[in-house]
């Protein structure tokens, strides 16, 4: 467990350094184009540092906001609060804040930077489909992520990847609209800026699979198994989580509207935006979870 915590701290630092180097390189290239490489470098590194600090201190709030999660009081959700409080006692950590997401697909995630600043969010679908024992299994799994500091890496990844996706979409769209306007006007004179925007967009598009790979390396599938096992150690009842995972697998046809590639790895099970379908090609690229059948099998063997 302590090795796990240390490894996650190392990974977070590595991720932030990688983000700074990557953005710095892009900034230098852009600056070089405009005639001042160092200025671009300084600007981009400053941006990267702001992004990293932001993801460290406010990442949990960003992630929660992006899923439209709402904090609930013990009066609103007595059962959920009782379970979270009980399992936090068992894990010997402070009770995290509790959120509910207005989604019908049963799923859950944890976020934050350490056990003192942690939040657990579950969907309405999870609350309506799970009985107490199953809910305990799910919350136990999420608390294991909190104890191991998986939430720190996960949240930093989510905000950094989210920022890169946002920037690349911004460039691709502005190129697209700029391109259309340019063709209509028949004026090819202002092609300089368009070419840059196009180049940056293209680079980020090429980078996307690499970023996907980095995400998969940072949040390995092994830790999901580990969190399953540790969660079961907390509840002392592996069949609870196994039964919950079976229900979640059966409900995989329900789409999740607020899920996206930046936060996919945080969820209890890989969410899907596409109705009925398992996963889109882009979602496969960011596939971070082991198959649910394998997780159930391992829980049943405990």
């Amino acid at each position: 467990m302590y090795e796990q915590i240390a490894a996650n701290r190392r990974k977070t630092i590595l991720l932030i350094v990688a983000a700074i180097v990557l953005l710095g390189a892009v900034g230098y290239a852009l600056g070089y184009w405009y005639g001042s490489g160092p200025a671009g470098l300084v600007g981009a590194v400053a941006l990267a540092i702001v992004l990293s600090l932001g993801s460290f201190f406010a990442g949990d709030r960003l992630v929660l906001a992006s899923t439209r999660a709402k904090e609930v009081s013990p009066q609103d959700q007595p059962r959920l609060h009782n379970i979270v409080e009980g399992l936090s006692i068992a894990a010997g950590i402070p009770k995290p804040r509790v959120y509910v997401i207005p989604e019908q697909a049963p799923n859950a995630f944890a976020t934050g930077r350490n056990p003192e600043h942690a939040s657990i969010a579950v969907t309405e679908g999870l609350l309506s489909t799970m009985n107490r024992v199953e809910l305990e299994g799910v919350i136990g799994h999420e608390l294991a992520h909190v104890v191991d500091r998986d939430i720190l890496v996960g949240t930093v990844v989510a905000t950094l990847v989210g920022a890169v996706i946002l920037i690349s979409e911004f460039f691709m769209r502005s190129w697209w609209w700029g391109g259309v306007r340019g063709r209509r006007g028949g004026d090819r004179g202002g092609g300089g800026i368009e070419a840059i925007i196009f180049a940056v967009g293209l680079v980020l598009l090429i980078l996307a699979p690499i970023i996907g790979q980095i995400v998969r390396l940072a949040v390995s599938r092994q830790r999901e198994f580990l969190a399953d096992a540790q969660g079961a150690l907390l509840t002392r009842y592996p069949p609870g989580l196994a039964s919950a995972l079976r229900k979640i697998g059966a409900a995989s046809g329900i789409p999740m509207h607020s899920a996206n590639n930046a936060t996919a790895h945080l969820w209890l099970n890989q969410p899907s935006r596409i109705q009925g379908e398992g996963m889109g090609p882009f979602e496969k690229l960011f596939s971070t979870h082991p198959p649910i059948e394998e997780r159930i099998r391992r829980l049943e063997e405990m």
Partner: protein
Amino acid sequence: MPTWLWIVVVLVALLLLGCIWIYNRLVKLRARVNNGWSQIDVQLRRRYDLIPNLVTTVQGYATHERELFEHVTEARSRAIDANAVPDQAQAENQITRGIRQLFAVAENYPDLKANQNFLALQEELTGTESKIAFARQFYNDQVMLLNTLIGSFPSNVVAKTFRFEPREFFDIEEPVRAPSEVEFPR
């Protein structure tokens, strides 16, 4: 300084570092055991507070179960007065059994089962029961770690020097996992 003196100095320094490490670990575990015990205490107190409420609510519907009510109320006051860990554990077990019987009795009264106040109490008591179990789990885990450290060599030397005492486990019955799904003995 001759070489052998250097070796002695390094060895003593290492020994001292080892002792400091063990001492700090002992202090940390003792703090966690104390914290674990106060967690159990908080939850047990919460249960004491809920019992009179539950008894009154059930009494309103099930008037013939006076013996059971008295039994639960008496177990509660015995638990509150208990000083030693084994005494308290015994009284707590009686409370747990009494509450289970109360819920079993409630099964026979449909009006009571539909009562909002009763349902809220049932969730609170079920939640508290599992919190007691989880607190006990944490406490016993920490006691085991502390007792192992106190009992094993070389940490037992440090433990004895600084008077770290092994602690008692808290043994109470496991609560039922899902009360509504279990058959209760009458």
